[in-house]
């Protein structure tokens, strides 16, 4: 069990590509941190630097308060689960799990006990004599996790461990890794590009883009208080809608876009120092409702939209509408029939509006 701290960590590859830029991050003891971002955002590089598989160009990485920049991977007391499992194909499941322990000269009996315990937890006891190629993807994944837990490391690293599994198995393994975290109660760092995985697993989520850490927060805070347009759009599915428009003073303060003209309540209006400026309004699909749906004072006046595409998925319906440049989504209860081409009147939840600077993308209000 240990804390992990990154101070101004930068990675510049030989070809001058900057993979990670000035990353500062503190992962406390027993925290489950998830690094999330689109592919190429530097999340795996960051993880590999913590593991010691990648050199650090600038900055410092501390594990348990000690700088480990020049400590080889084997002396960092960490274990890593790889995306493609990397089980040694010529060894049995038992040998795979025991390999690291043998190298550490742990007595045979102890090795047997630890491997058996881990196999018990992961339900792979029956496969200990098999070679990896005789296992299914899910079983291999368990072995890879088992190989990590037998070592009792200070820190667990997971590099997109579920991305090769099918959807159903992924959900199942996600739950099991969560259970494992509760059971082992140790520091875990998990890399994924899947925001649902990030939201459901982490106690702390680190959102990255282009090698820069965008926001570090708890899952709900990320969802409710994104610092910028990227985080707002990345977290949540379907993604937040962004309406480009202007703020206009005409008696009250209005947000005016191609589709909407919404009067903003005083509580929001007072946050804007200048008016008549371009701005981007962010609204999550569940914060747009049809007029007539249970609504309080918090809703805007009705706005008419033209239904473009209807996606009924059983427990809810996704309605898509568009303006001249892009498509937007809203989430509807399942008990109503909508048809493409239909005009409906919608309201926006005024207490759940996000305003982003149209140039910097930072969240203003």
């Amino acid at each position, binding site marked *: 069990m240990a804390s992990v701290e990154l101070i101004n960590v930068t990675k510049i590859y030989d070809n001058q590509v900057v993979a990670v830029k000035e990353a500062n991050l503190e992962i406390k003891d027993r925290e489950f941190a998830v690094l999330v971002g689109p592919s190429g955002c530097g999340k795996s590089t960051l993880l590999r630097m913590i593991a010691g598989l990648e050199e650090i160009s600038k900055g410092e990485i501390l594990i348990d308060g000690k700088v480990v920049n020049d400590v080889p991977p*084997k002396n960092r007391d960490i274990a890593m689960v790889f995306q493609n499992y*990397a089980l040694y194909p010529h060894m049995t499941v038992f040998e795979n799990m025991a390999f690291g322990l043998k190298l550490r000269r742990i007595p045979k009996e102890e090795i047997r006990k630890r491997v058996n315990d881990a196999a018990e937890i992961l339900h792979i006891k029956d496969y200990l004599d098999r070679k990896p190629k005789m296992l299914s993807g899910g079983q291999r994944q368990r072995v890879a996790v088992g190989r990590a837990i037998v070592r009792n490391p200070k820190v667990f690293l997971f590099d997109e461990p579920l991305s090769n599994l099918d959807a159903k198995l992924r959900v199942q393994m996600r739950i099991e890794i969560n259970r494992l975290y509760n059971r082992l109660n140790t520091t875990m760092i998990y890399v994924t590009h899947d925001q649902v995985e990030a939201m459901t697993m982490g106690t702390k989520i680190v959102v990255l883009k282009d090698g820069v850490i965008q926001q570090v927060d708890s899952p709900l805070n990320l969802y409710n208080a994104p610092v910028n347009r990227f985080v707002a759009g990345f977290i949540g599915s379907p993604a937040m809608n962004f309406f480009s428009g202007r703020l206009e003073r005409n008696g009250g303060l209005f947000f005016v876009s191609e589709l909407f003209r919404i009067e903003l309540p005083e509580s929001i209006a007072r946050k804007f120092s200048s008016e008549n400026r371009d701005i981007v309004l962010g609204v999550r699909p569940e914060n747009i409702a049809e007029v007539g749906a249970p609504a309080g004072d918090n809703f805007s006046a009705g706005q008419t939209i033209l239904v473009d595409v209807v996606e009924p998925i059983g427990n809810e319906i996704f309605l898509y509408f568009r303006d001249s440049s892009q498509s937007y989504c809203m989430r509807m209860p399942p008990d109503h029939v909508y048809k493409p081409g239909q005009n409906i009147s919608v309201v926006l939840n005024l207490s759940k509006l996000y305003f982003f600077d149209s140039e910097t993308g930072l969240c203003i209000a």
Partner: protein
Amino acid sequence: MNRSRRTPPLFVSLRLGLSYLLLVSLSLVFLTPILWMISSSLHSLEGVFAVPFRWIPEKLHWENYRDAMTLIPFGRYLLNTTVIAFAVIVGTVFSSTLVAYGFSRFRFWGRDKLFALCIATMMLPGQVTMIPLYVFFARLGWVDTFLPLIVPAFFGSPFYIFLLRQFFLSIPYEYDEAALLDGASRFRIYWQIILPLARPAIATVVVFSFMGAWNDFFNPLIYINSFEKATLTLGLNSLKAQIIGSGQTQWHILMAASVLVLIPNLIVFFLAQRHFIKGINVGGLRG
């Protein structure tokens, strides 16, 4: 599946038949000299040159084999050759895999240039280095010992290094990384991860280097002077030169000896082919 689209069975068997016909006839072309050798080894000397040649001799002269093994100290030569070939295999496999591991797994300054240089040495004809090498080994006092035949194998061979490096490159680097995190040293990764996974390539190197050493005539001819240190190829040569009675080379006995020399080649080949036909199976990764 659309039934009507399937190839008619008659066509399939016809195509299969044709392929076999082609394969069998080509194999026969390649097998003819060997079959001739085996057949001649069971003929009398006259039978070898009889026209037309009888592929199956009227009387099988098994005593040719006994003669082949007694006219020269066959057992001694066999032992010498085995010792040399075995040492050459060990040396070649160890040195070439180690160098190939370095070229495939480590990033260091000038690596690719060094690799190119290593490959370039393949272009040096053996004749060019023959005399300097002889002088070198002579100064070391190694002439008429097995050392000049064995020691060079421990310094890697560019062709095998190239072959192995290409194979190692196809082994995912994640295994190395997983092992590094497991606490393995670079040498242990080579020994316990890379080598076992590279069995097919190593089998190829074993077969080639064995055949190279076993069938080598030129180097033993240069370096070995004593009768009791000679190899089988030198023995075959001396047999050819032996004139018995008729003043003519005893081809039938020579062929019998040749068959005997050939057998270990076949054994090694059949033992190893299982590995290099099977190829690598990277079951530890996904898919």
